């Protein structure tokens, strides 16, 4: 991110214009369907939030550099080059009002992957010095400290000690030969440390061999959010190195949307080689344990529960059925929202938006779409599987005077585990 200049940004634009991107720009029929799929547009009706419009500087670069007419226009001075002022104007469109949720890519009638292009466009925005301060700070901390929120090992160790005391179990750390390496998001460590206890209890009951790592506990990847592939690759490599060192069979991505996208889907391409282990989302693993009869729950929630699909886990990650299978185990009165699963509406805070303070107003406007979904079914409680979604949902509900608790799916499952005999509980 150092030495960012307009020239570097334009070069980065040129580099990310690959064959799919060129084909996408060439095939856009200007139908506007992507607009109606984007919650920033639907909740503001401001045409600047049309997804394909957010790509305009990248499209202009493609046209000027890689099309016959565009090159002539540029040479004759008929088409002006992309400027710093233009990128300053687009910064809020590319970062503050796009959660990389992928809904626009789902509806494009010619199959353009707009999310892929916005993700790539951020490479040029960051290289030109047009990334938001919040994301720059988070990315610097991720590189230097190992966590975008500056969570250091002593903090994790303190949370582990607290959890061990609370649940009366030992949390395994740096165990070589464990089957699973579990990663965590800083949001879980700071805001929802109960998640650590929940997985410990579940894994104990199911007999899962697992470990945390003191060297690479952070699951999130702000390199992807800001759009700096070198950093994204470095963050992935840290997890890969530890997974290989501990000789685990699989890495567990926690209740975090983009962390799963980063390590599961983008990771191998970022580091340029396949993994020697599998990557599973925590919900995939829990559902596998359910299928194998290793997850035993008792009792059911009687309140009207619904599930919010985190975009990177469901739409872009394919984990749709698993949470519903798990909810069937513990919820008597589960109800789906309209537009759910792969077509769910984003909470409004993903893709780095929540790290950008100036985006608070627009992300709350975007939340109105989520509110409409809740209004349609009137749930007593919400369940989700992403710490960032949980926070945005809580904030949005509070802002809209809606008194609905937001629960973690993993923690809800843990609360319904068949109780162990009291004698096994450890005395403090």
């Amino acid at each position, binding site marked *: 991110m150092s030495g960012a200049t307009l020239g570097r940004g334009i070069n980065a634009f040129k580099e990310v214009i690959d064959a799919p991107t060129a084909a996408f720009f060439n095939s856009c029929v200007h139908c506007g369907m992507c607009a109606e799929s984007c919650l920033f547009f639907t909740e503001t009706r401001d045409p600047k939030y049309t997804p394909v419009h957010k790509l305009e500087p990248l499209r202009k670069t493609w046209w000027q550099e890689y099309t016959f007419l565009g090159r002539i226009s540029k040479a004759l001075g008929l088409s002006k080059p992309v400027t710093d002022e233009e990128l300053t104007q687009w910064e809020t469109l590319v970062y503050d009002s796009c959660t990389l949720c992928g809904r626009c890519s789902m509806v494009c009638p010619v199959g353009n992957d707009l999310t892929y292009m916005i993700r790539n466009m951020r490479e040029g925005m960051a290289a030109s010095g047009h990334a938001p301060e*919040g*994301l720059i*700070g*988070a990315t610097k*901390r991720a590189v230097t400290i190992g*966590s*975008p*929120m*500056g*969570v*250091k090992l*002593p*903090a994790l160790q*303190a*949370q582990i*000690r*607290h959890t061990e*005391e*609370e649940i*009366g179990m030992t949390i395994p750390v740096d165990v070589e030969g464990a089957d699973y390496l579990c990663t965590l998001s*800083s*949001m879980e460590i*700071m*805001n929802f*440390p109960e998640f650590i206890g929940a997985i410990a209890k579940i894994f104990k009951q199911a007999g899962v061999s697992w470990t945390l790592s003191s060297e690479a506990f952070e699951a999130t990847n*702000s390199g992807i959010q800001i759009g700096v592939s070198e950093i994204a690759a470095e963050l992935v490599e840290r997890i890969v190195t530890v997974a290989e060192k501990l000789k685990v069979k699989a890495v567990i991505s926690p209740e975090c949307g983009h962390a799963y996208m980063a390590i599961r889907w983008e990771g191998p391409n970022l580091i340029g080689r396949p993994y020697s282990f599998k990557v599973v989302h925590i919900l995939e693993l829990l559902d596998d344990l359910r299928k194998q009869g290793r997850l035993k729950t008792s009792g059911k929630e009687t309140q009207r529960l619904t599930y919010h699909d985190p975009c990177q886990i469901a739409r872009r990650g394919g984990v749709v059925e698993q949470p519903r299978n798990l909810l069937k185990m513990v919820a008597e009165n589960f109800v789906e929202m309209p537009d759910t699963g792969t077509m769910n509406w984003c909470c409004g*805070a993903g893709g*780095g938006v*929540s*790290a950008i*303070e100036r985006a608070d107003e627009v992300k709350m406007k975007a939340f109105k779409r989520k509110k409409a979904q809740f209004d349609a079914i009137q749930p007593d409680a919400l369940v989700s599987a992403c*710490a*960032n979604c949980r*926070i945005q949902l*809580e*904030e949005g509900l*509070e802002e809209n005077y809606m*008194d609905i*608790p937001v629960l973690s799916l993993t923690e809800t499952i843990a*609360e*319904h585990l068949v109780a162990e005999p*009291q004698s096994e*509980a450890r*005395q*403090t």
Partner: protein
Amino acid sequence: MTAITNDTEFRRQLEGLDYARQRAAARFIEHVLDLCDDERIGRVAKVAANPNASADELATALHSARAAAIDSHARCGADSDWKEQAGYFVARAATAAVSPEGQVAAGPAWQAAMSSRMAQTSMAIETPEDTAGQERLAQYRILSEFLNA
């Protein structure tokens, strides 16, 4: 005469309290109240401590506690400030203490106790001091006094 000396006994005693008496958790919150600078939490603790609090008062207190927790959580991607985070956990303790019956799976009083300890853990996250351990002992004493009163 009850004298609690470990978590197993502590939890067993809390679980033995009926819903109204679970609000003894207010005493745990009062013990860590100085870690939270949100004035709403002091008022919530007072409501929780009142055995005659009405359903409306409890609902208002719950709303205040939740709002305080939402206002004080760590922002995604923001630089961690564990001292501020202590206030968040005190607000969560207060939320648990005034939650409706059946809404806190672990039990309101136990959850409030754990969140109060987490507040102390947050305060001392980068020091070797075992403030959470001290808080645990204080909670044993507080509950023992409550049960013996």
